Structure formats: structure tokens, C-alpha cells
């Protein structure tokens, strides 16, 4: 059976009776086939019994929680069962050695930048980007500190956002990327998707031997699972930005799917539901992988990225970030 992600959007209780997991709300009590669950994403107000958590831990199912505004809150990351002392040491070594850390940090930024370029081409607004990018990637190569790497990244993003805006319909311009809180609709949409993507990456990391707390571009400890932030950089343009663009271009997400609050502009419940529906469909879509010569889902691409990182750390093959060929 192919395991699937489970999204709980409504309010209710998650509980375990005997060897069955149930989701119960005002209307009914639904059994959930636990063997078929890959991970769980909780957006509603859900009470979880400790028995249910024990059960999920036993089955190695991670649970990701999102707050009232749809942003990532935290994860229930069951005690890791996949261990490799050898890999943990390599991960730490690549963090502690400044050269090795810089190399990986730069690769994440480079991958992200090239994917931004791919998007702009797709959207037909790549004017002048290639030239700017070449210059900025040159500077990236020269960077000697992580802060410098971050700096270059920020400038690449600026170039990217200004062009991306030309492709977006009036009323859904990013203008200036704002996060906490997002000041307009497009920013809210991007933040929401990035948040969900981060949790996807975390789930994939959970299923490998990588320790998600040791990271390279982001400072470990900046957030708990900072390696998921590193890998997310590569996938944000390919997954989150593309979905966001499609949703507003096709009019699936409209102005009415947002509300203004003290906390800035936010997606409504219905808006979130629609976005998640499209997100899940998108991640289940397959593309032909040129190296593996087989079809892999977009979600699986995240796992493959983790494998590439493992190989880099073990000294098998230098990491080359995914650049969307699709």
C-alpha cells in the first residue's frame, strides 16, 4: 500500500481504541488506516490522546501542527529509529569545518537561485535576470562568511520578486516580501505555502538518517529543525511559488479568500482548504527523473535531495541541488 499524507482540517479528537486510530468530530467517528498513513498535518483544533500519540510514535508517523493562521507551529517527531552514528559525525564535521559549511550553504543558495530563474523563464518575465544572476552568483562564489552568503541570497530574491510581480495579476503583487505579518494577499499565500513545504521537507528528513537540527545555510538552533529550512530553499521556487502563481492566475484563490486582521492579511479557512487541496495534488504528481529513469512524485524529489546530501556528507558524490527540468 502506498502511504499517504493525512491532513486534518476540521476540529475534533484523534484517539486510539485497541489497534485502530480514530478521528472523531461532532458528526461522526472515522477509523483511519494507520498502515497507510505517511505523516499527519493538523490545521484544525484537534485534541490528541496520549494513547494516540504512543501509537503514532510506534508506527513512526510524524505529526505537524499549524496554528490558527495556518502557519507552522511544531512537530511531533517520534523518537528517531533510524540512526547512523557515522552520518551524524559527518554532518557535524561539515558544520564545524568553515570551508565545508560554506560550500553547502552556497549550494543551497545556488539551487534556489537557478530554480527562481527557471520560474521566471516559464512565466516569460526573465528579462535581464540571467545577467544579474551571473553577477550575483559570482559574488556568491567569493563569499567567505555565511552572512555574506545570506546577503547575496537576499539580493537574488529581490531581483526575482520584482520580475515575478510583472507576471502576477493586479491585486496579487508581492511588491515587497513581508513575512511577519504578511502585509498583502500574495505574501500571505506564499508564507502559508512555505510553511506547509517546510513540514513536508521535515517529514522526508524524518525518514532518512539525517539529523534535522544540524544545518549549514541557516544557523542550527535558529529554529529547531534548521536543516529542513536549508533544503526548503531549493524547493520553495519549484513548489510553493509555482502553486501560488497558478492559484491566483487561474482565479482559484480570489480576494475573498483573505481576511485582514491585526496580524496582517491572512487566508480564510476556505482559502487554506483550497490551497492545501492543490498542494497535495501537486506533490502527488509524477515527473520522469532523468538520472533514475523512472517516474517520481514531486514529494519524492525532496527525499532524493536528502539522499544527495547524505552522499555528499559521506564523500560519495558532491551535492548538486535540484534544478527543475520540468
Amino acid at each position: 500500500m502506498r502511504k499517504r499524507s493525512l491532513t486534518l482540517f476540521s476540529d475534533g479528537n484523534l484517539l486510539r481504541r485497541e489497534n485502530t486510530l480514530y478521528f472523531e468530530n461532532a458528526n461522526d467517528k472515522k477509523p483511519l488506516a494507520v498502515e497507510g498513513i505517511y505523516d499527519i498535518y493538523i490545521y484544525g483544533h484537534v485534541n490528541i490522546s496520549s494513547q494516540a500519540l504512543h501509537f503514532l510514535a510506534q508506527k513512526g508517523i510524524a505529526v505537524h501542527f499549524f496554528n490558527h493562521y495556518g502557519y507552522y507551529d511544531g512537530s511531533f517527531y517520534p523518537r528517531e529509529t533510524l540512526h547512523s552514528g557515522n552520518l551524524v559525525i559527518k554532518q557535524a564535521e561539515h558544520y564545524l569545518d568553515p570551508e565545508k559549511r560554506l560550500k553547502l550553504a552556497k549550494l543551497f543558495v545556488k539551487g534556489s537561485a537557478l530554480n527562481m530563474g527557471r520560474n521566471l523563464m516559464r512565466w516569460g518575465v526573465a528579462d535581464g535576470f540571467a545577467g544579474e544572476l551571473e553577477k550575483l552568483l559570482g559574488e556568491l562564489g567569493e563569499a567567505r562568511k555565511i552572512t555574506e552568503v545570506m546577503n547575496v541570497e537576499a539580493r537574488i530574491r529581490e531581483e526575482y520578486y520584482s520580475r515575478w510581480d510583472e507576471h502576477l495579476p493586479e491585486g496579487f503583487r508581492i511588491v515587497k516580501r513581508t513575512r511577519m505579518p504578511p502585509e498583502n494577499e500574495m505574501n500571505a499565500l506564499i508564507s502559508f505555502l512555505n510553511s506547509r513545504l517546510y513540514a513536508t521537507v521535515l517529514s522526508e528528513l524524518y525518514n532518512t538518517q539525517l539529523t534535522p537540527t544540524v544545518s549549514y545555510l541557516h544557523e542550527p538552533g535558529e529554529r529547531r529543525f534548521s536543516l529542513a529550512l536549508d533544503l526548503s530553499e531549493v524547493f520553495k521556487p519549484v513548489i510553493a511559488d509555482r502553486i501560488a502563481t497558478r492559484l491566483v492566475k487561474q482565479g482559484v484563490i480570489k480576494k475573498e479568500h483573505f481576511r485582514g486582521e491585526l496580524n496582517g492579511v491572512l487566508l480564510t479557512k476556505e482559502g487554506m482548504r483550497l490551497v492545501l487541496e492543490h498542494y497535495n495534488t501537486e506533490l502527488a504528481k509524477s515527473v520522469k527523473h532523468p538520472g533514475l529513469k523512472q517516474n517520481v512524485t514531486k514529494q519524492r524529489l525532496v527525499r532524493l535531495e536528502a539522499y544527495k546530501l547524505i552522499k555528499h556528507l559521506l564523500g560519495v558524490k558532491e551535492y548538486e541541488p535540484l534544478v527543475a527540468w520540468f
Partner: protein
Amino acid sequence: MNYLFICPTKLWYFSHGITMEGENEWVDLGRFLHERRYADEEKEVLIERIKIDFIRKGDTIEIHEVKLGKSMERAHEMQALYYLYYLKRLGIKAKAALHYPKLNETKEITLDGHEEEVEKAVQFARVVKSLPAPPEPVKSKKCKKCAYYELCWV
């Protein structure tokens, strides 16, 4: 251990803690014996479709393994030999049989005359495990079904 007889790359990854979901062909004999106290009773380990029986008959242990096909016959034999070798070193008399129900065949295996072969293999495994990085993968028919396929070839 039987990874060795399938693929050195896999052996290296596995012995360095890089395990894969969907891995099912592996039974750690030492752990099995330790946990189950083989001597107490007849035991059966069923892992997906591969079945291993440990049967105690008098002072001899019989290992029965049911295999689906012969495509990995050599690996199965080496694995059985390794079990026998391992048990012998623990001072336990044992013999093994590989069953191929689909082909209606059974192959009896004893350690006699194979000890040196197993020792060489164990030695080779030690060398592979001690390498700083996994040996280059070599693409073959078995890769298609291997749980390490993506890791090796991405």
C-alpha cells in the same frame, strides 16, 4: 551480513547505519538467537514473504528458508552457509535447507567443505565495511529491486 553476497555497496551503507524503508531480506542471526533463545522451542521468523524456520531436533538445529525463485541462489546459499558457520562457532550443530516451492525443489546445505569460502567472504566483508566510503555501485539486474536504488543512482 548476507548483503555481502548481494552487493558490496549495500553492505557498506547498511553497516554504516544507512538503512532503507522496505528492507526486508535481512535477519540478524545473532540478535535473533539472543532475543528468541532459539533452544527453547521451534521458531519461525516471517518477514514479508521470506520465511526462516529454526527447528531444534535433538542437538541439531535445522534452518529452513523458503525462497521465491532462484535468481539469487548463490546469495541464498552463502547466507545459509554463513548462518551455519556462525552457529558452529557458537558450538551449535546445524544444517540448512533452501526451499523453492514454486520449482518444487529443496536444496540441502551443510558447511562441510565450505568453511574456507565463508571465512574469505567474512574477511572481504570486513574490508568493505572498513572503507571510508561505499564502493562505487555497479549497475546490474538486481539494482531494479533493490531498496537502495534511489540512493545509489540519484
